[in-house]
């Protein structure tokens, strides 16, 4: 187990600066997710932790020791790649055994450990097969077993679920989370899928263009996104962002108006679809589209300030396309951002005019 620290870490590839200045502490035994769109530097950060890439500047610390120059093989980390990267010409047993080969573990002990790791991820009956004879989910378990067999101080997961089908993804999510609870190994998950991050991780590090946008619990990111980017990235279906101008306590957006407390100037109002309610009060609109999502229904409502997404509970639509409706919300659920700096204005809320 290890405590991980990034201190002013810089990573450049040639002239391209992928990570300009990264500062982050991951506590011993924590499960964190690096979340962001592709190209945001999350995989680069993970590969620096693995020792596959070396930092161009700054310090990377494991338990207080600088590991910048420590080679991958001496770091005692386990990693699961997006493609699983199983050795194609080796049996499952040899794949899981591979890391122990270099630890000079005695054969009997090594085989016992392989068995234990295989049992842990439930692939014990597949030990004699080749990776090509396994399904995606099985390959992914074998990759996990290989990463865990050497009892790493740090477990790295690079988009481990993105190649699995939807139902398998759901069960692997639960399994990886319970594995972490069982083993207590410091775990870093890289993902572009906010659901994966929020369901699995204790803490989420949301990244954008090589910089950390926000660090916090899933709740922090959902309820108190520090920037427009985080607000837009977390939550599904995505938040409604409405830009307008505030003057004397009123935000005016094209035809519509909000009353605002605690802010002025160019603002962007954030309203999550699940916080909006179709009812008798609020701003007016016309239902343009209905998307049933099973337990919920997504309405796209044309209003004076553009299309607004509204998520209603229930499995059958209570309204029909073309219907004129009013959309209301609770003021404490609204978010207000400064448009110029794209930052959240803490404590500021809007309410719809009565």
């Amino acid at each position, binding site marked *: 187990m290890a405590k991980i620290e990034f201190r002013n870490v810089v990573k450049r590839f040639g002239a391209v600066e992928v990570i300009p200045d990264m500062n982050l502490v991951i506590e011993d035994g924590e499960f964190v997710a690096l979340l962001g769109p592709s190209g945001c530097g999350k995989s680069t950060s993970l*590969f620096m932790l*693995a*020792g*596959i890439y070396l930092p161009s500047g700054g310090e990377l610390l494991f338990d207080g020791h600088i590991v910048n120059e420590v*080679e*991958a*093989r001496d*770091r005692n*980390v*386990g*990693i699961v*790649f*997006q*493609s699983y*990267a199983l*050795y*194609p*010409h*080796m049996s499952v047993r040899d794949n899981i055994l*591979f*890391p122990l*080969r*270099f*630890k000079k573990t005695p054969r009997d002990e090594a085989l016992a450990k392989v068995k234990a790791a295989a049992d842990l991820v439930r692939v014990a009956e597949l030990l004699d097969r080749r990776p090509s004879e396994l399904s995606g989910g099985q390959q992914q378990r074998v990759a996990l077993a*290989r990463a865990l067999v*050497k009892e790493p101080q740090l477990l790295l997961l690079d988009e481990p679920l993105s190649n699995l089908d939807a139902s398998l993804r759901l069960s692997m999510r639960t399994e990886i989370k319970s594995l972490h609870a069982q083993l207590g190994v410091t775990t870093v998950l890289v993902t572009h899928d906010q659901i994966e991050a929020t369901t699995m991780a204790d803490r989420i590090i949301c990244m954008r263009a090589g910089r950390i946008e926000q660090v916090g619990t899933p709740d922090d990111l959902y309820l108190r996104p520090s920037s427009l980017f985080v607000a837009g990235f977390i939550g599904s279906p995505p938040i409604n962002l409405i830009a307008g101008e505030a003057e004397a306590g009123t935000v005016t957006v094209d035809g519509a108006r909000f009353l605002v407390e605690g802010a002025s100037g160019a603002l962007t109002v954030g309203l999550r679809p699940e916080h909006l309610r179709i009812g008798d009060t609020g701003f007016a609109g016309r239902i343009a589209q209905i998307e049933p999502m099973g337990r919920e229904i997504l309405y796209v409502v044309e209003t004076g300030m553009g299309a607004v997404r509204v998520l209603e509970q229930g499995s059958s639509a209570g309204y029909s396309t073309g219907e004129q409706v009013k959309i209301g919300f609770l003021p404490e659920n609204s978010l207000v951002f400064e448009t110029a700096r794209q930052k959240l204005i803490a404590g500021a809320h809007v309410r719809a005019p009565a």
Partner: protein
Amino acid sequence: MTSIADELTIERRGHSGSAARRRTNFVIFLGPAVVLTVLFFVVPVVIDIAVSFTDLSRSLRISEFTTEQYEKVFRTDRRLSQVIGLTFIYVFGTLAIFNVTFGLILAVTTTAIRNVSGSFFRGVWLLPRMSPSVLYILLWLWAVSPTEAGLVNQVLMQAFGLDAPLDLLTSAPIALIIISNGFIGASMGMIIFTSAIRGIPEHLFHAAAVDGAGTFAKIRFITLPALRWPISFVTIYQTLSLLVSFEYILLLTKGGPFYDTTVYALYVYRRAFESGQYGYGAALALFLIVIGVVVALIGWRFFDMERLLQRPRIEVH
């Protein structure tokens, strides 16, 4: 909406209509290849077999059909066993030292270093293959010239203080033909192995590094297993081409001194075109063809080459 029955009818009609088209496609697409194969591979073999049963010689006149050439091959030609032994040393030596091993080393090292320098060194090793064979051998003749002007002698005498120039063409002719062929042969393996190494997913190397593998462990556990098929292919292909090619040897040593570097293919050439024993040359050549086919078949089975050939991804009608 079409019913299933309708669709079946359409499909059947399509099939019967396509029979003639299939024949046309066969002629259009395979025709040229078949014609070339027959013209340049099958016909020469037939002619060779026919000539081997004649007494065709310098006079270019056939006076009788005879099996005497084969009697010569099996009974009277005492030089043949030496030639076969040399051919074995030459083929095996060139393959084992250069075409496979050195090609592999070149591929592994030039892919491990920076791409620019890697490409540069691969380019250098490709040069002999790109230069005309006569020019290439002229350079060799100059390099191993028995006078003080020869490159090797210049180096040995000036850098290592050797007294008298060496005559490598006389003292080490077999080594010379292996090296001069190997310098060219290594580049083919190099290119094939390089592309195979490039085809290995990078994540495998990353995974191995994290799992604790060093440079040599990565080569042993990741690179070499991925090269099994390319190595098989290069071995078989190069065995066959080494068996039948002799132009570098002919240009460099003319098969000499005496018969010291006369490999089987060159022996066939010398018998037929230098001694004018065309009938005998044809009989000898026939054995080369047989040996080639046998080696190819053994290789095919031994290396399980069939698995190398992928089934076509599309259905062809």
